[in-house]
């Protein structure tokens, strides 16, 4: 087994196992801890796939931000330990059956689908991402991501982006395509974050507790 396969299986088994542990555990704090390891495993998978910037963003935003938020939510809404919130055995059974069927269906479909299409065009742009094993110091993802989020995209020399389709004589086709940058979604996401920040601060402002415990 190659080293890539070994690391992949280690990370994949950790991630999947901890995700299942999130579902199974009854204690909400332990569920948060298993979610921490799941998100860390996903970040590891991102690094294995060569997406170093996305992996570091996953750790910083998800693990270091969102999950801390969830843990604070858990602590602020803590219940007395004698109140257990458990679903009945019948619900568990039905959910597990449906979940099992769904996972089987998804696995079957994705292993039976042909993911590699017709032979790729030899002039297709080389993958600019970095797979594990090549030099992470020379990876271009940060530069490319930064430029594309500013709307700047580097193109093929003749101005088009080749796609791997061929005409009737098996000649590779090139389809001219307008370069799409991501400046507008970037700005929209920034405005969205400001709106969400203000809204969350307003919704969660300190107020007197008015309710009585529900039976």
């Amino acid at each position, binding site marked *: *087994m190659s080293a890539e*396969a070994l690391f992949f299986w280690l990370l*994949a088994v950790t*991630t*999947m196992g901890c*995700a299942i542990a*999130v*579902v199974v555990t009854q204690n*909400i704090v332990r*569920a*948060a801890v298993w*979610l921490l390891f*799941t*998100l860390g495993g*996903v970040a590891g*998978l*991102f690094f294995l*796939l060569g*997406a170093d*910037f*996305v992996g570091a*963003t996953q750790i910083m*935003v*998800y693990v270091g931000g*969102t999950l801390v*938020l*969830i843990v604070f*939510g*858990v602590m*602020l*809404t803590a219940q007395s330990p004698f*109140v257990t*919130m458990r*679903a009945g055995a019948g619900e568990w059974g039905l959910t597990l059956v449906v979940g099992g069927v*769904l*996972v089987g269906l*998804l*696995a079957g479909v*994705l*292993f039976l689908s042909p*993911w590699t299409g017709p032979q790729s065009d030899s002039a*297709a*742009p*080389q*993958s*600019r*991402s970095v797979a594990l094993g090549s030099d992470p110091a020379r990876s271009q*993802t940060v530069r*490319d991501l930064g430029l594309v989020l500013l709307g700047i*995209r580097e193109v093929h020399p003749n101005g088009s982006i080749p796609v791997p389709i061929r005409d009737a004589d098996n000649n590779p086709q090139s389809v001219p395509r307008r370069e799409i940058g*991501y400046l507008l979604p970037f700005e929209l*996401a920034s405005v*969205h974050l400001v709106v*969400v*920040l203000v809204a*969350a601060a307003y*919704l*969660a402002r300190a107020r007197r507790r008015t*309710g009585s415990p*529900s039976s």
Partner: protein
Amino acid sequence: MTIAVEHYLLVGAVLFVAGVVCMAIKRNAIGVLMGVELVLNAANINFVAFARYNPLFVLEGQVMALFTIVLAAAEAAIALAIVLNFYNNHLTVDVDAAEDLKG
């Protein structure tokens, strides 16, 4: 054994189903939120796997993954604000107690 895109998609599928089951079965509202995070991470794994294994999709996959991470963080913030409000009003986070609009 070469790791192909199917293996990463399998991890994504398992995470997705775990997230859906978590959303369905947990009675704690924050547990439901954890399920949502699992689903979003599954989608991210799929995006980045496609980015790696398809040379045309390199930047798109990673950009979509970045936007998903950012928007999921925003959504988690709002969801927690809602849960805190619910807790202030009902003194519990049991989703079965949210039946004021029932009937």
